[in-house]
């Protein structure tokens, strides 16, 4: 039985006890799947999971707190579920996690780059998964691309491809892409130096249109309508189109996620302008992992910034 079928039968078995199961179904374009809310067996025919299952279904869980729901989870998604549960933003027992081993997910921007001169991603007629490759029907004929070349960056450094702590796990556990997230990308980025990076963010943030898609896609941004980016009490940032205001929003997002971000990358994926906002969060995640050995969404216990040790062996204080 294929993983697809196994997932369907797992969903089917769980549905009677749940108000819905969140998975993925066909999206507006062949390259884009959309979240699917499965309420009855009839919805199952639209379900599919695989290379296009980019969205993090954990996003919807906090709003559904109080009812029993199921969620089909990649490794990333399961970490979000774990972190939400650790922070009691959801009740873990209310959520039925159906996990599977993730082979990586598509980055449509990379497909666009690969198809440069062939067609726009929106013109692709269909996508067929074929082992480690995908076949795309384009107006100029079939184009075959290796999955690893068009997978999201995060997949290239994935240490938790399998949905951890799932209630049901289908398929065979995959080996992680790397043994640990060494944050080599962040180290390399930081090595460019503050002057260059300042200019980098000035340029990137000048493109920001303040749509807040990054925030809205983040499964751990639970403030929603009460985000301090849009409030006067307290009034943290102005409503201008200025770079400092826009940059400061990213700072807020990153600081609010420090010790919490699971690195699912939905913020960066959702950005319509392709601004690499995940970098800021990963910089803080690296710091938190180094200081407190805390991997959000995997570790249990109080998140590191909501607790303390009287002696902090890893913190070298300024000896003035």
């Amino acid at each position: 039985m294929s993983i697809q079928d196994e997932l369907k039968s797992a969903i089917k078995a769980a549905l009677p006890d749940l108000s819905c199961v969140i998975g993925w179904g066909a999206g507006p374009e062949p390259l884009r799947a959309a979240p699917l809310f499965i309420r009855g067996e009839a919805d199952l025919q639209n379900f599919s999971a695989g290379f296009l299952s980019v969205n993090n279904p954990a996003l919807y869980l906090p709003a559904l707190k109080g009812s029993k729901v199921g969620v089909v989870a990649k490794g990333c998604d399961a970490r979000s579920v774990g972190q939400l549960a650790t922070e009691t933003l959801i009740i873990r027992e209310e959520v039925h996690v159906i996990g599977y081993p993730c082979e990586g997910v598509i980055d449509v921007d990379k497909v666009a780059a690969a198809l440069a001169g062939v067609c726009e991603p929106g013109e692709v007629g269909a996508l067929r998964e074929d082992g480690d490759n995908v076949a795309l029907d384009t107006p100029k004929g079939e184009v075959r691309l290796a999955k690893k070349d068009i997978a999201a960056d995060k997949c290239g450094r994935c240490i938790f491809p399998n949905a951890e702590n799932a209630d049901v796990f289908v398929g065979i556990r995959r080996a992680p892409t790397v043994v640990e997230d060494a944050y080599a990308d962040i180290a390399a980025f930081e090595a460019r130096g503050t002057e260059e990076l300042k200019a980098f963010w000035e340029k990137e943030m000048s493109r920001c249109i303040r749509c807040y898609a990054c925030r809205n896609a983040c499964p751990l941004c639970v403030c929603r309508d009460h985000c301090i980016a849009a409030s006067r009490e307290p009034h943290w940032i102005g409503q201008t189109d200025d770079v400092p205001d826009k940059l400061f929003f990213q700072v807020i997002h990153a600081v609010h996620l420090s010790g919490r971000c699971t690195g699912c990358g939905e913020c960066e994926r959702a950005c319509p302008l392709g601004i690499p906002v995940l970098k800021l969060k990963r910089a803080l995640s690296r710091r938190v992992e180094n200081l407190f050995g805390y991997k959000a969404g995997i570790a249990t216990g109080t998140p590191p910034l909501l607790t303390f040790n009287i002696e902090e062996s890893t913190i070298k204080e300024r000896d003035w």
Partner: protein
Amino acid sequence: MKIGVFICHCGSNIAGTVDCAGVARRAAAYPDVVYSTDIMYACAEPGQDAVIAAVKEHGLTGVVVASCTPRMHEPTFRKAVERAGLNRYMFEMANIREHVSWIGKDMEANTNKAAELVRMAAAKLRLNRELKPKSFPVTKRLLVIGGGVAGIQAALDAAEAGLEVIMVEKQPTIGGKMAKLDKTFPTVDCSSCILGPRMVDVAQHPNITLYAYSELEEVSGYVGNFDVKIRKKATCVDWDKCTGCGLCTEKCPSKKSYDRFNEGVGPTTAIIIPFPQAIPKKASIERDYCRMFNQGKCGVCAKVCPTGAVDYAMQDEFVDVKVGGIVAATGYDLVDWTVYGEYGAGRYPDVVTSLQYERMLSASGPTGGHIKRPSDGKEPKNVVFVQCVASRDPSVGRPYCSGFCCMYTAKQAILTKDHIPDSQSYVFYMDIRSPGKGYDEFTRRVQEEYGAKYIRGRVSMIYPKGGKLLVRGADTLMGGQVEVEADLVVLAVGGEAAAGSPALAEKLRISYDGYGFFMEGHPKLKPVETNTAGVFLAGACQGLKDIPSSVAQGSAAAAKAIGLLSRNMLDSDPQIASVSVNRCVGCRKCIEVCPFKAIQEIDMRGLPKAEVIETVCQGCGLCNATCPQGAIQLSHFTDNQILAEVEALCRF
């Protein structure tokens, strides 16, 4: 808002290095500032009156005073503003003395900095809101920690004023260091004769409950309503049954216990009553020395006890009490002088501490009041006193003067002559510090009438020579080396904060200095208060002092506590957190971090929300910094108020 700004000269304290009129001119241009002036002394009556008059004349709705630190005069000006008819929180202070005029002489830079501090204060004030305190009832009970003379005085004064007093003493008896002294300076009256009756008063006072051999385990709560947990350490003797007959101490076969009360001058038994006048006069077992605990068999004391009070299985017990105020009177300990290799580091039995010497002088001490050399029991003829041992000595981390050693050394020299008329005392000293009533006269008498030889200089070495100790030192007045053959050397060891002081300070949430002495609220004006409301200090725990000063401070602390607890209701500080329920998403992070458990989850139409328990909140603002939506805000230090200060400084 109509803001008035007042720039204080503080005489020349500020005006000497700040152009106060210039600051006032600049402040006039700040947003919402309608009135700005400089003033000679803002805190003095004419200054306060000028503020009040300006509020009325110009219809001010907020006031900024730029003067000294708000830790000093914020309450003063808040009251003045209140007298002018404004809410006391419609006031901000800019600290242009401690943070400006006193730390730099550059007039231009100081003036500019002062103006910016005023700008920050005015920017914050624009967002201040009227705050009103709430009243809460007070527990009319006082906790006194430490049963030395300072604690005894505080407890008796408070009890006499009608307060219920709980006294906690670490040792099995109260009396503290004073109980160990033979006589006291400068009157040379018997220490236990004057202290003893006070100790009895503590035991008999209907308002005082004494927990001896007990320690403070935990403190929570806040002024007026502290919750205290006391650990009653296991004495292995049921004190309800013990009559203090002392039979057990006579029969105890373990006779080599360290005698804590007698400073180790001679051994004692494992079951002890510290001294005949002990309060409470009850026996307790020192487990480290008891054969029952070390060898698993003995049981002599249990057998001889006529009331069957001995209970080897006794465990520590805990008592919970609610008190309204706390007096810390934990005293001092002698510094461990054995760090001094030049004095033998404890190797020579005939080098003793001043406190050991007191026990030798005491008629109720282990030598029956006879001065005997510990080595051979002989009466010494030449006694050398060495002052400033671990006092005024930065090399051992004790740079401060212990204050009382000059005087007790003079007293001990006098007593030596009284005990042994043909003896000769030598005192090596750095300076004679005797600034008290009758003190200087006393130090003259010891030299002029009692013939003690005072040598100004430090002792460089003490070493044994033919049954005697050779004391070598400098005589800085005569110039040259001095050597004295001593039969006995008494070290005037300085004091340090009692062991465990920092840990206690942490429990009480009060500050302590680098030596472990507790910090008073203000070095001059709040000598017995701390910065934690409801916690007061008495005696040497605040800094070393002699008996009269300790007693005075005990009374002072009691007066402060009585003043506090005489009220039925206290006003709560309204600078506490509050939740905007619309913004709260019920994420519980504030509940998770609050150190005081002052936030609870409530259900609002099916949605979880945070709620601050107003009487429990201490106003630290940790929740405010934790809440991602800023739904919980600390009044008077809201995000917007702090942001306004930041923005007032921003260049971009």
